[in-house]
C-alpha cells in the first residue's frame, strides 16, 4: 500500500479525476436521456470525490477535511439520485418520455 502510494504521484489521480469529470460532463451535455444525465452527474460528483481524497492523502493528511467532504458529497449524491430519479419518474408519468428534447416548457 505504501509502495503504491509512493510510486503513484498525485498528478495521476488528478488526471484520472479530470478524465472522469470530462466523461461526466460530456454525458450531462450530450446525452438526451434524463437517466443518462443523472449518471453523468454521478460521474462528476465522483470525480470531485476523487480529487478530495487525493488531495487529502497527498497534501493535507493532518486533519480529516477531505474525507469528511467526500462523505458529505456521497450522501448528497445519494439524495440527489433519489430526488433526480423521483423527478424523472414524475416527468415520465406525465409525458411518457424522459427525452430532454421534449422537456422544453420554459422555452421563450
Amino acid at each position: 500500500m505504501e509502495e503504491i502510494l509512493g510510486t503513484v504521484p498525485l498528478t495521476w489521480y488528478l488526471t484520472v479525476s479530470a478524465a472522469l469529470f470530462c466523461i461526466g460532463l460530456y454525458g450531462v451535455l450530450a446525452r438526451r436521456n434524463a437517466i443518462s444525465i443523472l449518471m453523468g452527474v454521478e460521474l462528476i460528483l465522483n470525480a470531485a470525490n476523487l480529487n478530495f481524497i487525493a488531495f487529502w492523502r497527498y497534501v493535507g493528511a493532518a486533519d480529516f477535511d477531505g474525507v469528511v467532504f467526500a462523505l458529505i458529497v456521497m450522501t448528497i449524491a445519494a439524495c440527489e439520485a433519489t430526488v433526480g430519479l423521483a423527478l424523472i419518474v414524475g416527468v415520465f408519468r406525465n409525458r411518457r418520455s424522459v427525452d430532454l428534447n421534449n422537456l422544453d416548457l420554459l422555452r421563450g
Partner: protein
Amino acid sequence: MFNLVGLVPLLPLAAFAAISLGVWRDRRLSTYVALGGIGLAWVIGWGIFFATWGQSGLVEHPFRQTLLSLPTGTSRLELGFQVDPLTGLMLFMVPFLCLLIFIYSRGYMAGDKRYSRYFAYVSLFATGMLGLVVSDNLLFLYVFWEIMGLCSYLLISFWFEKPSAYRAGLKAFLTTRVGDALLFLGLLLLYSRTGTLSFAEIFREESLRHLAEVQAGLPLLGALPLSTLIALLVFGGAVGKSAQFPLHVWLPEAMEGPTPVSALIHAATMVSAGVYLVARMFPLFAAAGPGNAAMNTVAFIGAFTALFAATIAVAQNDIKRVLAFSTISQLGYMMAALGIGGYVAGVFHLITHAFFKALLFLGSGAVILGAHHEQDMLKMGGLKSRMPVTFWTFLAGTLALAGVFPWGGFWSKDDILNEAFHSDLWIIYVVLSLAAFLTAFYMGRQVSLTFLGKPRSHEAEEAKEVPMVMQAPLMVLAVFATVLGLIGVPEDFPILGPILGSNPFHHYIGEMLALTGAHPVALPVNWLVLGISLTLAVGGLAAGWLIYGRKPLAAGQPDPLRARLGPVYTVLENRYYVDEFYQATVIRFSLWLSEVFAAIDSRWVIDPFVNLVGRAGAALAEILSRADSSVLDGAVNGVGKLVRAGGRGLRQVQTGQVQDYLLVLVTTVLLLLAVFLVL
C-alpha cells in the same frame, strides 16, 4: 280713505292675475272677477276723489305712501303712491269709465272665443292707467306707462287672425316706443341731475329753480335751461302716447281692436296718460318761465295737431276712424291749452273729453254691432229710427264734442279758447278756432251720414238696437257728457255761475298751479270768444247737416265734398300721406339698416369672422392631430416595438433545453478560467 290708494291699481291687477291663472276657464266668472276688480277700484277711487274735493293743502303736502325704499349708494330712492287733486280727479274719471266700458264689453264681446282673455287684458290695462295716476314718482309712472303700452299692443291686435290687426298692434307699440325712449332719456337726465324721481322732490322750489338756471349746451340747439330740455324729452313721451303729430299715426290704426278697447284707449286710458304726464310735470315745463321753449313746443304741436287731425277727420268714411282723428285733434287741444299755460282748461278738457269720447266710441261700437259689423258711414244711414237709444246718446256726445251750450265740451273748449285768446300766441287761438269749426263739421257729417236719411246698405236696413247691457253705459255716459261741464262753469257766467257755486273745478285743480309758484287766475267770461266759439260749433254742425243731412246721400253716391274739394279731398282722405311718407323714409330706412346689419352679421363681418375662427381652429386641430398620431404615437409605438423586438431577440436564448444552459455555463467557466489563466 287715502290709505287705500295702493289698492286702486292692485285690484284690477289681482283680477288680471286671477283670470289669467285659471279663472279664464269660466267665462262668466272671469267677467265677474274683472268687474269686481274695477268696480272696487271705482268705489275706492271715488271715495278718494270726494275726500280730496274738500281738503286743502294736498298740493303742497300730498298724501304719500312709500311702497319701496331702495338704497342707492348715499341716498334712498323712495317709490310709492300719492294723492293730490290731479290724482283725485283722474281717479274720478279713469275707474268709472273703465267700469262702464267693462260692462259694455260684456255685450260687445259676448260670444268672442277669447272672451276671458279680453277681460284679463283690459284689467291689466286699467291697472296701467290707475297705477300711472297714483304714482308719486316718475319711475313707477314709467313702469305703468309701459304696462299700458304692452296692453295697447295686446288689445289692438286682439283679433290677431286679421293681418291688419296685428300690424296695427305692432305699429302702435313701435310708434309709442319712439316717444317712450325720449321719456326714458328725460327720466335718466332728471335723475342724474337731481338724484330723485319723486314728484314732491322735483317740484320743490329750489330744485326747480336749480334746474331752470343750469344751462344744458346742446349741439345745434344751443344753450337751453336743463328744465326745458327735460320737459321736452318728457313731452316726447307724451307725443307718442297721446298721438300728437308727428307720432299720431298709430291711433287711427288702433281702431283694429275691439271697439270697447278703442273707447278705453281713446278716452279713459292711454292717450289721456300723455296729457296727464304733461299736466303732472307742468311745474317742470313752466320752470323756465312762461313762454319758454318747452311750453311753446307743447302749444304749437298741440295746436297744429288739433287742426291737422280735424282736417283729416273730415274726409274719413270709417265711423271709428273719424272718431280716432277727432281724439287726436282734441288731445291737441289739451296740449295746446297746457302749452299756453291754461292748466285748468287743459285738465278740464281732458276730463270732459274722456266722458264724451268714451260715449261716442261706445256709441259707434253699438252702431257697428247693430249694423252687422259695417263700419263705412257711406253704407249706413237711417239708423235713427232703428237704434233710437244709440242715436240720442250719440247725439249728446256729438253736441258735447262740438261744443254746444250747455254740453260738457262747450265749457272746457271755451275755457281753452279763452285762454288762447288772452295768451301772447294769437295764432294758437285762430288755429284752435278753425279746428273747433271742423270738429263740429265732421261730427255733423258723421251724425247725418250714420243716423239720418235712408239706409244705404242691407246691413243698415236690418240694424237692430243693441242689448241693455250696452245701452246702460251709453245712457250713463250721455248724462255725464251733458252735465259734467257744469262743474267748471265760470264764476261770472250769468245765472249758471252763481247757482253752481264759484267754479268749484277751477278752485280744485287750480291749486295744482301753486307748485309753479303761480296763482290760478280764472279768466273773466269773454263774450266775443264765447260767441265765436258757439257760432263755430253750431255753424259747423249746420254745415255738416246741410251737406249730408238735408239731402241724404243715395246708396253708392260718393262724398259730395270730393267733387267740391278735388285733390285736397284726396290728400285729406289719405291723411296727408304721412303714413306713406314714413313708409318711404323711416321704415324703408329701418329696413335698409336692418338689412345692412343683417349683411354685416351674416355675410360681411360677424359670421365670416366666426367661421374663420372655426376654420382656423379646425385646421389647427388637424395639424395637432397629425402631429399627435405621427410624432407622439410614433414615439410611444416605437418604444413598444423596440421592447417587443428586443424581447423577440432575447427569447431565442431561452431554449427551455436545460442542457443548453449548462453548456453556456460550462463554456463561460472555461472562458473565465482561460482568461484567468492567461492573465
